[in-house]
């Protein structure tokens, strides 16, 4: 038995029976990170000392019989979550030395269960990117093929779980940033419904779209981690006060009577043949499992990318106004006056993609263009959301590709922002609609790169997503494959 090959559920059994200790588990992962972390550049910060101390505390809880579901499990988190006393860079030079004075709610909740925070993960700067090439700390590599991207913006989170450098990870998803890297790295990633998980303490990118979620080895672990972080938080005024169901209980494997819709607009020109075949095979698997699979329509799909890149950049330009070199973050020392200090600090602190989005968002909100761009996009967002509500009158969940192609090569799209944006076409609509969606492994391309399928669920119905995903996972073996790493 290799400790780092075990799922969280498998580790739970062995920790509870005292077959292994939390300190042994943490040390196994720390060794693994030392041996393999630098090759894929997954971690920005490894919390070696605090992780061992947290593991010791977990062992005490295990000895005292007060262990919770996550006690002693090493979890790595995207470097967008504030965690007290640890650096939070958000992948940016501008926050290169920022030490968090408080815990994000998602962090506080896993700490309450005595999980071990093993480190902070690489990401596209301010969560803006689809390839993890926009990090100030260098690109992350795909564990399945080191010349390819892991996806983004939670690229470090997906690569870390795939390379078995943590038992699970937390990411964030604004336009696909959990699901797309999960599919590129052959792991499970879930973006909950907007409002299901608190955003308190998570560095903001586009506040009406951002959502926190788990990235794990399999669906059971996904349910376990979602259970821990979901729920109302008075500190986030957009978190929704609705009960969190028992997600483990939804993993029954029985799909009789389930209706699955395949949106015709998602199976169009530009969809890679291997991805299309994997999705057709997944549909066949679902039929074999007793589900009814029918075609549905989401007529405004083609407008989603344009809509997203106006709304997200507008919100980003507003959110990122706070990085001004006054209260925290990088300050340029060559400024002539206060305004120049703002301008020079931001010029020195932000990378190219962040600058591009701030500029686009500022333009879309500027005098004379607001109605034509931002307001128009918000109206189109209503149409896109309505598409989903209409489809969910007919089906329980949607089955779609996660991305048009498997992982692309490092450098392939860096010089063409629009092409990069278009790779998010299948993930963005769920963020605009505010509903839940997840990615799970469903095959490999001819050249050995992972392919994921996406399930999109009704708002606040993560239980059906997990149920539908779990049944597929039980019937296939894709999730058991590991990169030779």
């Amino acid at each position: 038995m290799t400790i780092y090959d075990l799922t969280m559920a498998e580790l739970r059994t062995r920790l509870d029976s005292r077959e292994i200790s939390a300190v042994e588990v943490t040390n196994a992962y720390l060794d693994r990170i030392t041996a393999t972390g630098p090759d894929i550049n997954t971690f920005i910060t490894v919390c070696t000392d605090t992780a061992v101390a947290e593991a010791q505390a977990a062992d005490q809880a295990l000895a005292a019989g007060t262990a919770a579901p996550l006690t002693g499990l090493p979890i790595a988190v995207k470097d967008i979550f504030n965690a007290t006393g640890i650096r939070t860079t958000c992948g940016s030079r501008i926050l290169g030395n920022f030490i968090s004075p408080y815990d994000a709610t998602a962090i506080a909740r896993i700490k309450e269960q005595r999980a071990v925070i093993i480190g902070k993960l690489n990401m596209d700067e301010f969560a803006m990117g689809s390839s993890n090439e926009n990090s100030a700390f260098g690109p992350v590599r795909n564990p399945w093929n080191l010349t390819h991207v892991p996806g983004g913006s939670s690229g470090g989170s997906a690569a870390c779980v795939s390379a078995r450098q943590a038992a699970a990870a937390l990411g964030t998803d604004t336009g696909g940033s959990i699901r797309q890297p999960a599919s590129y790295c052959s792991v499970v990633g879930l973006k909950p419904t907007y409002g299901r998980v608190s955003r308190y303490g998570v560095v903001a990118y586009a506040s009406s779209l951002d959502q926190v979620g788990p990235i794990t080895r399999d669906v059971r672990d996904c349910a376990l981690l979602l259970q821990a972080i979901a729920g109302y938080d008075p500190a986030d005024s957009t978190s929704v006060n609705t009960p969190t169901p028992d997600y483990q209980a939804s993993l029954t494997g029985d799909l009789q009577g389930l209706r699955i819709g395949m949106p015709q607009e998602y199976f169009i020109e530009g969809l890679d043949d291997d991805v299309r075949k994997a999705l057709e095979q997944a549909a066949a698997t679902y039929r074999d499992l007793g589900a009814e699979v029918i075609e549905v329509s989401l007529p405004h799909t083609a407008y989603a990318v344009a809509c997203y890149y106006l709304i997200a950049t507008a919100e980003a330009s507003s959110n990122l106004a706070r990085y001004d070199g006054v209260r925290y973050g990088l300050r340029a020392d060559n400024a002539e006056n206060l305004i120049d200090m703002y301008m020079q600090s931001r010029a020195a602190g932000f990378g190219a993609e962040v600058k591009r989005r701030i500029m686009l968002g500022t333009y879309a909100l500027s005098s004379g263009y607001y109605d034509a761009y931002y307001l128009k996009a918000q109206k189109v967002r209503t149409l896109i959301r309505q598409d989903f509500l209409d489809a969910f009158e007919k089906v329980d969940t949607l089955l779609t590709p996660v991305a048009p192609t498997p992982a692309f090569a490092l450098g392939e799209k860096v010089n063409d922002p629009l092409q990069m944006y278009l790779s998010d076409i299948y993930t963005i609509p769920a963020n605009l609609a505010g509903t839940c969606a997840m990615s799970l492994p469903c095959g490999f391309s001819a050249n050995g790169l992972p392919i994921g399928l996406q399930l999109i669920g009704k708002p606040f119905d993560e239980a059906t997503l997990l149920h539908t995903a779990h049944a597929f996972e039980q019937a296939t073996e894709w999730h058991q494959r590991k990169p030779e790493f």
Partner: protein
Amino acid sequence: MKITRAEVEHVSRLARLALSEAELDSLTGEMDAILDYVEQLKTLDTEGIVPTAHAVPMENAFRPDEIRPGFTPEQALANAPDVAESAFRVSRIIE
């Protein structure tokens, strides 16, 4: 052209973001291409459609107005680039 170099320069001042000559050149082309792409939204009739600011319909979230623990001055200042006594220090703005 959807956007000119002069407009990009103006937006950079609105965004408080200094850009080099090379950045102004490349951003003009990139923003033009992106704005050209988003132009397709104009083909949709959105007459009478209510804009969505937020995907989950919500009322205002209120909390009791009561004193709660916050950061100490030391915590609040710990990440500041420049500090004087218990304040953030910036360059003089009034001559």
